[in-house]
């Protein structure tokens, strides 16, 4: 332990440089300069090269401006190592709210940055969804041209996929996970900041798609259409994926290293909380699956800029290459999203049924089984692309096998509810909603895994309804379960329970109505990717659009709840729910390095038959907070 000494309070110039302000200023200058140079070098004949150069300039100079390279250069060329005071400054010590706008290394700051970003991205993405439902509420074009509609669908898709990938691992994986394993920070704090700010740098690239003519491929970015598309909005899509994939890969490396190396004494692999297992397995999948996606987007960019032919059949390329590279990421990516959310559900269920995780090892084995199987099932997305018939049966079998470990997850959760002392809180409501929606999403998936039924349903609204039941219906519900559960620890205030219940019921009823109607539209034969619906599908689509109003209402109720809580919400106590995992043993708000003395773990954190844990931080207010933590806070009774 080293005394930090005095932390210098930064002046205005020091506060702004480096910060997100200087990052944006330098990034814009870098984008313009790089774009102008390449435009001049190509005599204005290669728009894609100009756009790619501008995005490269933006990304590099944004990071110069925000100070991401300072630490790297000092690591190599400075005369001495960083002092504790400098480390504290970098971790945001004494910088108030401004630390959220700087290259701050504290894992809790990064977690909050992710959380705020997830909120904004979800809001933008859900607004895209409402535009889609509005356009599809009656037959014929209402507001958008087919091209604009396709762009909105594509942007909604890629934005929501990206957001759901980070929604649990980003905020909770950064804020909660290190505390859960008894660590003072992530293994690589600077890398942690880098992974967040890469995500931030991708947002202007995403928004620029609209200004650059959009893209017509949908979220999958299928080549050769991606190569043949004339608007540079497609370049924006490729860059978005590249930046996002690098961000996710760095975050995955960091989380995995943290869990491997930074666990406190006694926190063996067999005692890891289920949430940690879920995140670890998810990031292992990210590390495995994302490289092929990165390579696919590099190839698309090369095809667009240098006129190579990876995907152009006339010159020896092939569309199957893209489909394989894409879906090798695309299907595991569903589990990158699912595993942490499922683990959150198990964690929350244990606390609110006051029972140990039923079959802990069984559950972890199930999650491992899902991870392993998920990397060998991508071929079921190519059933109707003309792939080799001999491959169909193995891919069909693999895909159906996944239902076994997934079934274990359901059994475990039901086992926890069985004879548990069920405490119906908002987090538990979302777990319940997740189970209902996941059953529907999972069973409808079996029809798509089987070739005979997939031949009929493929490319239709049935698929849209299926994956919405799986991702938003199940995993976003899991995210909300985690959010209501950990929000008091992260923010120090308790989300309003009544508004939370209203949020849940509006969301669940709206969701079931919207996507059950789209199942019906799919069974009637409505295709996806159709800007204007045909009259036979009008009723189902109108019902879907009407129910979507409830989802919209739920979004605004949630936003109101968050704002209300931040302004006037009740202050949370250290152990809000009587949880046994380590994050509930530290004070709220959590100190900079989490633990004064690192805790020693002696058992699994789910022994709800025993008294509440002793606090590991000796501060008096914390001790009283833990002891006084109500088993059922008044707002929840």
């Amino acid at each position, binding site marked *: 332990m080293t005394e930090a000494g005095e932390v210098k309070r930064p002046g205005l110039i020091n506060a702004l440089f480096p910060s997100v302000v200087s990052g944006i200023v330098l990034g814009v200058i870098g984008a313009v300069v790089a774009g102008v140079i390449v435009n001049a070098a190509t005599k204005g004949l290669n728009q894609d090269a100009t756009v790619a150069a501008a995005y490269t300039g933006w990304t590099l100079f944004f990071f110069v401006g925000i100070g991401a390279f300072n630490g790297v*250069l000092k690591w190599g060329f400075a005369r001495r190592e960083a002092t504790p005071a400098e480390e504290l400054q970098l971790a945001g010590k004494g910088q108030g709210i401004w630390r959220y706008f700087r290259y701050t290394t504290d894992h809790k700051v990064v977690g909050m940055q992710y959380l705020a970003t997830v909120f904004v991205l979800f809001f933008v993405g859900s607004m895209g969804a409402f535009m889609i439902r509005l356009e599809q509420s009656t037959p014929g074009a209402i507001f958008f041209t087919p091209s604009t509609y396709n762009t909105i669908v594509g942007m909604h898709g890629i934005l929501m996929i990206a957001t759901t990938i980070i929604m649990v691992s980003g905020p909770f994986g950064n804020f909660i996970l290190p505390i859960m394993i008894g660590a003072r920070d992530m293994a690589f704090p600077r890398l942690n900041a880098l992974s967040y700010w890469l995500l931030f740098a991708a947002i202007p690239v995403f928004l620029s798609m609209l200004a650059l003519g959009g893209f017509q491929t949908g979220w999958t970015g299928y080549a050769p259409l991606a190569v043949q598309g004339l608007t540079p909005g497609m370049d924006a899509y490729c860059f978005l994926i590249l930046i996002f994939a690098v961000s996710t890969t760095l975050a995955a490396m960091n989380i995995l*290293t943290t869990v491997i*190396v930074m666990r406190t004494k006694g926190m063996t692999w067999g005692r890891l909380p289920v949430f940690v297992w879920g995140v670890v397995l998810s990031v292992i999948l990210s590390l495995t699956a994302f490289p092929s996606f990165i390579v696919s987007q590099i190839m698309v960019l090369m095809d667009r800029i240098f006129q190579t032919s*990876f995907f152009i059949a006339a010159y*020896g390329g092939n569309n199957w290459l893209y489909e394989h590279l894409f879906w090798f990421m695309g299907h595991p990516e569903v589990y990158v999203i699912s595993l942490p959310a499922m683990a959150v559900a198990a964690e929350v269920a244990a606390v609110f049924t006051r029972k140990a995780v039923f079959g802990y090892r069984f559950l972890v084995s199930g999650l491992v089984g899902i991870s392993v199987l998920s990397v060998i099932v991508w071929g079921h997305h190519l059933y109707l692309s003309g792939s080799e018939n001999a491959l169909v049966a193995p891919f069909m079998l693999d895909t159906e096998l996944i239902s076994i470990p997934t079934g274990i997850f359901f059994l475990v959760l039901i086992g926890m509810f069985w004879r548990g002392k069920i405490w119906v809180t908002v987090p538990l409501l979302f777990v319940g909603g997740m189970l209902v929606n996941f059953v529907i999403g999972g069973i409808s998936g079996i029809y798509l895994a089987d070739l005979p039924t997939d031949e009929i349903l493929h490319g239709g609204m049935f698929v849209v309804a299926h994956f919405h039941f799986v991702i938003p219906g199940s995993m976003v519900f899991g995210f909300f379960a985690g959010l209501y559960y950990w929000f008091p620890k992260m923010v120090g205030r308790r989300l309003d329970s009544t508004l939370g219940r209203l949020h849940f019921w509006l969301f669940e009823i709206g969701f079931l109505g919207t996507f059950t109607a789209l199942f019906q539209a799919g069974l009637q034969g409505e295709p996806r990717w159709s800007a204007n619906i045909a009259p036979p599908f009008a009723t189902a689509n109108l019902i879907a659009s009407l129910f979507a109003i409830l989802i919209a209402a739920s979004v605004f109720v949630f936003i109101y709840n968050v704002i209300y809580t931040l302004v006037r919400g009740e202050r949370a106590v250290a152990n809000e729910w009587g949880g046994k995992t380590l994050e509930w043993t530290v004070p709220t*708000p959590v100190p900079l390095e989490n633990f004064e003395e690192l805790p020693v773990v002696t058992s699994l954190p789910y022994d709800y038959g025993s008294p509440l844990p002793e606090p590991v931080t000796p501060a008096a207010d914390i001790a009283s907070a833990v002891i006084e933590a109500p088993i059922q806070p008044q707002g929840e009774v």
Partner: protein
Amino acid sequence: METSLEHVHELEPHIKVARARAGVLMLILSDALAALAILAAGGYLRTLNTEGQYKVAGDFAPAYLPGLLIAIALVLSGLAYYWWERRASKPGGAGQTPFFLLALVLMLVAGVSETWIGASLRYGMPIQAYESVQLLLPWFTAVHLLLAVFIGLLLGGRILRGRLAGHEFIVEVVGYWWYYTVVASVLLWLFGVYLT
């Protein structure tokens, strides 16, 4: 959110070593999978030979000799690094700095040469699938070699400042990336030769 703690806890040395090892090995795993995806893509296109257009008359690969010389330079760079690392990675060991400099210079020469190869491939547009793969291989390799040079420069900075003492594990983990770069680059070159 108020965060108050007046001191900073330093990580135990064995944790610093373990996290550096784990981090670099994961970076290598992720990058190796990207390289594998490129190899798989090249092999797949070759096998499919779509419409008989994968490789047509007049298609050419980068010249063999420059690639061979770069491969030799890379192997020598790896050996020089290994020679330096043998002593430098031991506690208090200084190593023989000329070997490190030799490794760095060879890596730099290889990186610049690979960039030159990529830039000098004057393929007529549109570029056939075979030539597309042949264009991707040197550029992918060049980026890696130049990244290794950048890491080498940072390490060189620490050597010049005398900041390796007590951080000998850095020599070891940079070595992981160094050797990986050498092996991956040589394999990618051999793959290009195989496609020819």
